[in-house]
């Protein structure tokens, strides 16, 4: 049966540079989790992590596929982008490190807190990147 699998999976596509719709995917993720009745503090962590990931795509990548997978034990958010990738992941994980342009900073982004913030809100966080191709983020948050 279609509904038997107890995992929920939703996919979204994000376009780079689309500041008008920036934040809409993390809002949808939040609404899905609220619908299901997940604890509000866990929702908030998922919302912050997905918002930061979404903004990274909007600012730096061409496009990305976003998937939310919810099981009885955890929330998994995977973001696969097509973009320039990150050459020095270690540096990018440092608070305050940013390659944002002046325009982005004027809009209040690019404080170099994005990736560290995602890591802080995740129970498990993986990042892999191929320069010139793109970056993959795996954000795992346990429900208990």
């Amino acid at each position: 049966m279609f509904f038997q699998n107890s995992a929920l999976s939703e996919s979204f596509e994000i376009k780079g540079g689309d500041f008008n719709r920036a934040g809409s995917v993390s809002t949808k993720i939040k609404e899905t989790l609220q619908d299901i009745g997940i604890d509000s503090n866990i929702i908030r962590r998922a919302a912050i992590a997905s918002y930061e990931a979404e903004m990274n795509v909007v600012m730096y990548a061409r496009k990305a596929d976003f998937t939310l997978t919810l099981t009885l034990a955890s929330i998994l958010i995977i973001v696969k982008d097509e973009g320039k990738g990150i050459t020095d992941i270690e540096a990018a994980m440092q608070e305050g490190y940013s390659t944002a342009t002046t325009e982005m900073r004027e809009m209040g982004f690019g404080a170099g807190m994005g990736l560290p913030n995602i890591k802080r809100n995740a129970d498990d966080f993986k990042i892999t990147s191929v320069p010139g191709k793109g970056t993959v983020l795996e954000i795992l948050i346990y429900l208990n």
Partner: protein
Amino acid sequence: MDHYTHSLRIDEEKCNGHMKCMRVCPTQAIRVRNGKAIIKEEKCIDCGECITACPTGAIVPLTDPFGELSKFRHTVALSSPALYAQFGREIMPSKILAGLKKLGFDDSFDLAITCGEASLALHTYLEESSGPQPIISNACPTVVRLLQVRYPSLIEHITPLEIPRELAAREIKKKKSKQYGLKEKEIGIFYITPCPAKMIAIKQPAEKSRSYLDGAISISDIYGPLLYAMENVEKDRYHETMEGMCILGISWAVEGGICRSLEMRNSISVSGISETMKVFDDIERGRLQHIDFVEAHSCPHGCVGGSLTVENLYTSYNKILKLIETLEIEQVSVCADYAKVIKRYQENYFFKARKLKPRPIKPFGQDLAVAIRKRKEKDSIYADLPQIDCGACGSPTCLTFAEDVVTGEAKLSDCILKQIPTAGTGKKMKVNEIRKHLHLKKLTAYDHPDMDVTGGYTSDLLSDVIAHSNAGNLWITLQTHQNIIAVAKLKDLAGIIIVNNREPDEETIKKAETEKVMLMGCKERAFQISAKLFNLIDSKD
């Protein structure tokens, strides 16, 4: 499920099922079933938008009638600063307070004075608070409910200080009971309210504790009698009218008033539910950690825009600003005694006795596995719906309808667009053939010359086209706005013929290109082009 009282009641006799309330409700709490509106209590945040939207006056705010006064041995009217904004510039608060006494209250009290003390207490709290940033104001009960329901994770951001009207009522009860040797319950304190939400905050405080207030009377109910009562109030001398007025407190009636009076530069003030939600979204995403304080009002421009006020909100907003200006020019000192406030602050006088709890909505119940299954059902039902949010089913959006179907509150067959068959007549012709015969002008670059046309439908009413056109029809209309594309797409029409040489809006063409809908134009009127198309297809044997 917990039971929640609300400040609104629907008068079934007056309700005609117009659905206007359902469409304006910011939390999708209203449904129309069997032609009557119903409020889903767990979703309602008492904002009062529906009261204003209802054309038949069927949504009644549950404020208290005047007769309630006789239940108490001593009665006090507690006036919201928004009341002062309802009258002309020459009528000062002192006159309004005197007028309230003439109406039958034993005493009247200016809430602005307590608001002023609360401003100073808030200032002190913001300086020493080490909690999450920013702190959110709790002055608007609708905003507090919005946070409980939609932003439960932000509960910790709400100031733990008690709201001025409760502080004032507590203080008045204490003083009056001593003064007159009465029990506290023999003293009735009535809040003169600009909105129904404050009524509910009295009957059912968000912290689920008891309120010190005994009732609320709406500004709109008291306005007429008060106007009359004030005619008999003796005129005070100009300077006497200013005595005891609190400039810090008056400003609580308008958006930004608290922030401005405390010169909190690092703060945000916002009004209106949808704008407030944008700010809360940003707080939730951690984007406003550098802001100290957020003042949010559900009504536009703050309490002066409340649904139970009388005066146009821009006029009343202006009146409050003028009042503040006058007080500034006359150098009326800030009335709250700072030293006294600090002392009381340290004695926890200003803090709420109970903590606020979140109240998240769990439409699919507590069990996670069940909720996941139901959410998937909702998604698959939604994917199959027209997604035009027409509301005819009695749910405000297709998404809420899908939820209502899953929870058993609605049937899938309630969707009118699911009921209409879209079979063609059996006769067919290619689009490019018709275009050639009728000399139609192509208006879109998108083209599908081989598409089969099953006939035509002529109408300028979108809902009529939705109800009666068939798949593969060419739709003849004079409408040029972009909604026609959505209708054509929804009904799988072969294309749209716009009559009379009318030119579609730029947006319409853009949308037609992305949605792949063929737009064509002709110089004929609808009657003539319909006849030609009919002769071409329908009359064919």
